């Protein structure tokens, strides 16, 4: 009997997926559970497994095509069995759109339009009982049973998905194996793409080789692991989430810092006289970042993701966060409306925030609302580094030290003060060229700071 290979629903909001790569070809022998095709959604990449032992039938959807959830991809056939005849609608693949403009003002709805023919949820008594016990709304659950009935397995599957999505990415094979072996996925460290937990991770955990230890070669004495608390725990969780779920790319530029240095030295006494505050390179960087964000509003955006929807949120305020090291850990106080402040006002605000941060007197509102983060490790002798995006922001700027470096100009090597800027970019929100233009503009503003007057 032919068994359908269909597009699975991997997340609550998933309505379609892209066929990335066929791992098996028509006529290949497959065993149940063996990956046959790689697919990708807006959130995850995954492998679809053979639902039965047999031979893969004709491939109905070419690589690169988008298929609705439940759409037929192929069949697993008994050896020698003819593939079933297909209704014209069976393979409802549509060609992938080549480029997608992201209109900016609202969160774009990526969730499906609900089928509103009939509001009644068809669910078996067993499924209803389990859903009640687990406090799950039946309306959220995708039915797999005959006649579109929600059965117990659907409720269990949904509950597992909820659990998986709330904490980590996990491959279907790993998920099933973990259930079989009784391995707690929450304790695993994924080694797959984007930190996804893959089969090998589960097997290793099951074998007792590795739980949360960073490397199997490190032996851990009982009681020596210090659980993180407070700020350190928040940093750990947020950075892990960002680094494992945000597709980062990095852009670097070496910027001539001669004018920047001169400007700071020239303005230092003026600002000090006006405000009593020592003007820093960071203050000028804040001003430059704010100006660049005004000029490139597409960078001033956030990636919003929750249970019901995900997409791009255009931001209007320009609020610059400054990554600040405290003994207890990293915090990011925010200078709001930095685009509307003078350099003196920025310096004053910055000094106030840092002072209160060190005194442990920051309020929640001092830390909220950042649309952009600046991380400057120049004062610690760092030349260049790559920062992790502070979600849900689109970019973070990593600034190294200003240092005299050999620079070639018109065939002559000169010693010039330069600084390395490195921009980390969320590829879901911005492409390379957009990031490059933005970074180039910041470089220009730093090299010719009088442009800020325009």
């Amino acid at each position, binding site marked *: 009997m032919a068994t359908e290979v269909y597009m699975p629903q991997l997340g609550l909001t998933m309505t379609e997926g892209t066929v990335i790569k066929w791992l098996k070809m028509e006529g290949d022998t497959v065993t149940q559970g063996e990956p046959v095709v790689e697919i990708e959604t807006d959130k995850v990449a995954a492998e679809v497994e053979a639902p039965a032992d047999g031979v893969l039938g004709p491939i109905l959807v070419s690589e690169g095509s988008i298929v609705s959830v439940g759409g037929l991809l192929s069949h697993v056939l008994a050896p020698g069995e003819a593939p079933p005849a297909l209704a014209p609608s069976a393979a409802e693949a549509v060609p992938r759109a080549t480029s997608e403009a992201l209109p900016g003002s609202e969160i774009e709805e990526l969730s499906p339009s609900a089928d509103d023919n009939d509001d009644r949820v068809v669910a*078996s*008594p067993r499924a209803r*009982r389990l859903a009640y016990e687990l406090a799950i709304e039946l309306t959220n659950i995708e039915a797999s*049973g*005959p006649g579109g009935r929600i059965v117990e397995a659907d409720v269990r599957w949904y509950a597992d998905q909820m659990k998986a999505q709330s904490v980590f990415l996990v491959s279907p094979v790993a998920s099933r194996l973990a259930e079989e072996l009784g391995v707690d996925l929450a304790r695993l460290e994924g080694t797959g793409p984007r930190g996804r937990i893959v089969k090998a991770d589960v097997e290793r955990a099951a074998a007792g080789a590795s739980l949360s230890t960073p490397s199997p070669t490190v032996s851990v004495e009982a009681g020596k692991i210090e659980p993180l608390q407070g700020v350190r725990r928040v940093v750990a969780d947020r950075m892990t989430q960002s680094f494992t779920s945000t597709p980062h790319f990095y852009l670097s530029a070496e910027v001539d810092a001669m004018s920047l240095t001169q400007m700071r030295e020239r303005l230092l006494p003026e600002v000090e006289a006006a405000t009593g505050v020592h003007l820093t390179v960071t203050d000028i960087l804040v001003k430059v970042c704010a100006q660049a964000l005004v000029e490139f509003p597409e960078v001033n955006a956030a990636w919003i993701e929750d249970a019901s929807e995900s997409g791009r949120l255009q931001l209007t305020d320009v609020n610059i966060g400054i990554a600040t090291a405290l003994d207890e850990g990293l915090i990011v106080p925010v200078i709001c409306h930095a685009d509307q402040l003078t350099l003196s006002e920025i310096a004053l605000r910055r000094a106030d925030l840092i002072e209160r941060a060190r005194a442990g007197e920051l309020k929640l509102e001092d830390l909220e609302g950042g649309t952009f983060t600046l991380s400057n490790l120049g004062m610690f002798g760092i030349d260049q580094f790559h920062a992790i995006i502070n979600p849900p922001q689109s970019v973070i700027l990593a600034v190294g030290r200003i240092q005299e470096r050999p620079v070639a100009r018109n065939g002559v090597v000169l010693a010039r003060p330069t600084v390395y800027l490195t921009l980390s970019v969320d590829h879901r929100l911005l492409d390379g060229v957009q990031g490059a233009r933005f970074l180039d503009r910041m470089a220009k503003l730093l090299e010719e700071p009088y442009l800020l007057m325009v």
Partner: protein
Amino acid sequence: MSETRDLTIAEAIREALTEELDRDPTVFLIGEDIGRAGGTFNITAGLQERFGKDRVMDAPISEAGIAGLGVGAAMAGMRPVVEIMFCDFLTLAMDQIVNQAAKLHYMTGGQAQVPLVIRTMMGAGRSAAAQHSQSLHAWMAHIPGLKVVLPSTPRDAKGLLKSAIRDNNPVVFFEDKMSYGVKGPVDKGDYTIPLGVGDVKRTGEHVTLVATSSMIQVALEAAEVLSSDGISAEIVDPRTVKPLDKETILSSVKKTGRAVVIDEGYLSYGVTAEIAAIISDEAFDWLDAPVKRLGATDVPIPMAPALELATVPSIEQVVETARGLFGRRF
């Protein structure tokens, strides 16, 4: 369990009758052609020679008479085992069974007992046509005061028949004519299987097949086919439909969440309806799919072999019905 050997159901029944005739002098057999001829299917072969004409009696062709004789003898302290050759002929003995045997203990305030066994044959498959092929056990099960037994294996047949003979109430014992040749291990010597205790003939996780008598073999083969789909079927044999072992059925269905009830009696108003209703009622919150029923088609059983077979639940039907309860996730 003690030592066993493989016997057919026919041999197991003959062994039970022999041992009970040996054990208890009040036990006697009466029926049409059971003595000199040894029974239509040789079940009683050799018994008259061994126990004599007083204990293994050939009767005239009068089902009402034989049954009435059995009721009277039972009330007088004997343990008669009456054979009604085909259960189609129970209709002739209906008054004796339904209005006398089933009710006398009650109507005499317990003064009278009717320890009567009626052995009879059910089932299609031998081109015996509409008057010799029915499975009318639901009629008997409908009547309070009667116990109804449907063995499916040699071991069950022997143990259940012994229990029936020793029971102080009237028991109707249905033997499937196509199953007489079914072989299986049977314990040597004396043992009984209580009436009202079901048996799990195969353990499984995903669907419960409740089957009786001849349908156990069908269910076992269907379960093998289903296992190749990854569907693991559990088979519950109630063994007696009255009294009915609800607990074994319900605990299986609560585990699997799905049930198909299979019985060779007519579908309408039959055993499957009773069992399906009990499941729907008492295991409702454990059901993951509607309870399905398979029984004989509601027509007089045809003689033509192809048509006759089409009236009885088949392996394919059981497989398709069970598959229909599953989507792609279970």
